[in-house]
């Protein structure tokens, strides 16, 4: 499988508003890690939502994990989403469940045994530095801590594709770096990763492709250390016609 995400001339607008995405084409290769930057309101979240089938594109074609998502029926959406780990700009945690229970949800819906869940959840919480907060309720956590719970939930079931929308927005520089390193480690073991972020300073030195979204168009604006970049990152960033 060549592409994990493939956009071909995708356009999107909300209601009668302006076009947020104008014939956007790009691809994310299997095992690739890529950053998406752009000013606030450029449409980064919109693009990620299209990948997660939280919205349907008005024009163009999108293929995700080898499936043309225009052809995924409503009843197949849950199974489709279970292949993807999504980290949202707002962490969308259940306020009346503990941190542990929130992170366990993706495993619970997959029917994992209790012991297995305990082991994996603690592993994921450890990875985001929140092992000590497993019994806390989300409203008692700081914004950054909540965001890290969301990250743990997205990675706990080992998805094939990780989508992260501004995952470091509420984190201090040290924690932001650690979260980026966590994504990189996932990428090293074969997980494809797409991260939308403003934090150019944090990612510019990293050996991954960076695409810039502005005025509805997407362009490769910057490269990290090209020699050190994984092979997939060095391919032409624009989708073929």
């Amino acid at each position: 499988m060549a592409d994990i995400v493939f956009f071909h001339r995708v356009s999107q607008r909300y209601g009668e508003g302006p076009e947020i995405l104008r014939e956007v084409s790009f691809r994310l290769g299997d095992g690739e890690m890529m950053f998406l930057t752009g000013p606030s309101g450029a449409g980064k979240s919109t693009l990620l939502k299209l990948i997660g089938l939280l919205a349907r594109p008005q024009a163009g074609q999108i293929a995700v994990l080898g499936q043309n998502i225009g052809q995924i029926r409503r009843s197949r959406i849950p199974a489709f989403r279970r292949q993807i780990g999504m980290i949202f700009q707002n962490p969308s945690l259940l306020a009346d469940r503990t941190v542990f229970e929130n992170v366990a949800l993706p495993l619970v819906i997959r029917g994992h045994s209790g012991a297995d869940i305990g082991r994996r959840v603690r592993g994921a919480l450890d990875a985001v530095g929140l092992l000590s907060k497993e019994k806390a309720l989300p409203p008692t956590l700081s914004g950054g801590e909540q965001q890290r719970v969301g990250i743990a939930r997205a990675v706990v079931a080992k998805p094939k594709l990780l989508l992260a929308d501004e995952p470091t927005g509420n984190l201090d520089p040290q924690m932001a770096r650690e979260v980026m390193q966590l994504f990189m480690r996932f990428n090293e073991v074969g997980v494809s990763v797409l991260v939308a972020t403003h934090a150019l300073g944090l990612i510019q030195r990293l050996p991954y492709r960076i695409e810039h979204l502005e005025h509805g168009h997407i362009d490769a604006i910057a490269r990290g250390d090209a020699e050190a970049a994984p092979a997939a990152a060095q391919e032409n960033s624009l989708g073929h016609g």
Partner: protein
Amino acid sequence: MVTAKSPQSAAQVATQPSWLSRTLQDHSRALNASLTQLMRKPIATLLTAFVIGLTLALPAGLDTVLRNLDVVGDSLQGSMRASLFLKDSVDADRAQELSRSLGKRPGVANARYISREQALEEFKQHSGFGEALDLLKDNPLPAVIVVTPDHHAPQAQTSALLKELSNLPEVEQAQLDEKWLQRLYAILDLVQRAVLVIAAALALAVVIVIANTIRLDIERHREEIEVMKLIGAPDGFIRRPFLYTGLGYGLVGALLACAMVAGAGMLLAPPAHELAGLYDAEPALRGLAPEAVLAVFGAALVLGWLGAFWTVSRHLHQIEPD
């Protein structure tokens, strides 16, 4: 920080539990979630269950009343008799033989022959017209065979039997005291059908009450449902706790319904006792039949599940994350 493990790690495959234990585990989690939800607002839960209980108690109570009337009817049937007045041409031997053979017929408890002489004797004793009757040259009374049907036999069979006996060639005229009993049975039959119609209407009411209650539960859990959908929870998984909630309402409703009928039975026992005495009927008041208890519980669970399934199916699609 810990290194991320390989997504294709062998442990992941090895720890996949069997289908059965997964299913049991899923259901126990859903049951748990549903119980937590019901216990979180015990008053509201009880009120809903109470309404459902009342709705179920009505047909169950009516059914119990009918059963008791049926019992009264049956024991009255025991006192029902047919008097077969024999033709004058039938002699005593033939009459006696007929009486014996009638007594052996299935559905007949007893047949007693009363000769013309005995009849006159009895009449004299009971009527007080003794001397006046002595003036008569001839005995005006016919011989009679008094047939008592077996009161264990079904009512329809008894009616048919008595009709048949009245058509015997030896019988001049038959007097059956069963008309009013037939009317009682006809009325009971009508009421029984009415109970079915009422029960059907109330069943619909139960479904609507449960559906509406669960619709509110769904509304309260809108955010949770959105998050569940975001992480790819299947509809069945999201639906399950609500189905258990529907079953829960049905179960508690059924318990309350049976308690209400039993309570009403205790209140009605003394007057029913008196009434039974007046009619020479079996005095014991029958409570809810075991089949009725089963029916109440079965119906309540089915209706609870239906109401929940209906409303969840309708509203789950309207909740989508954005």
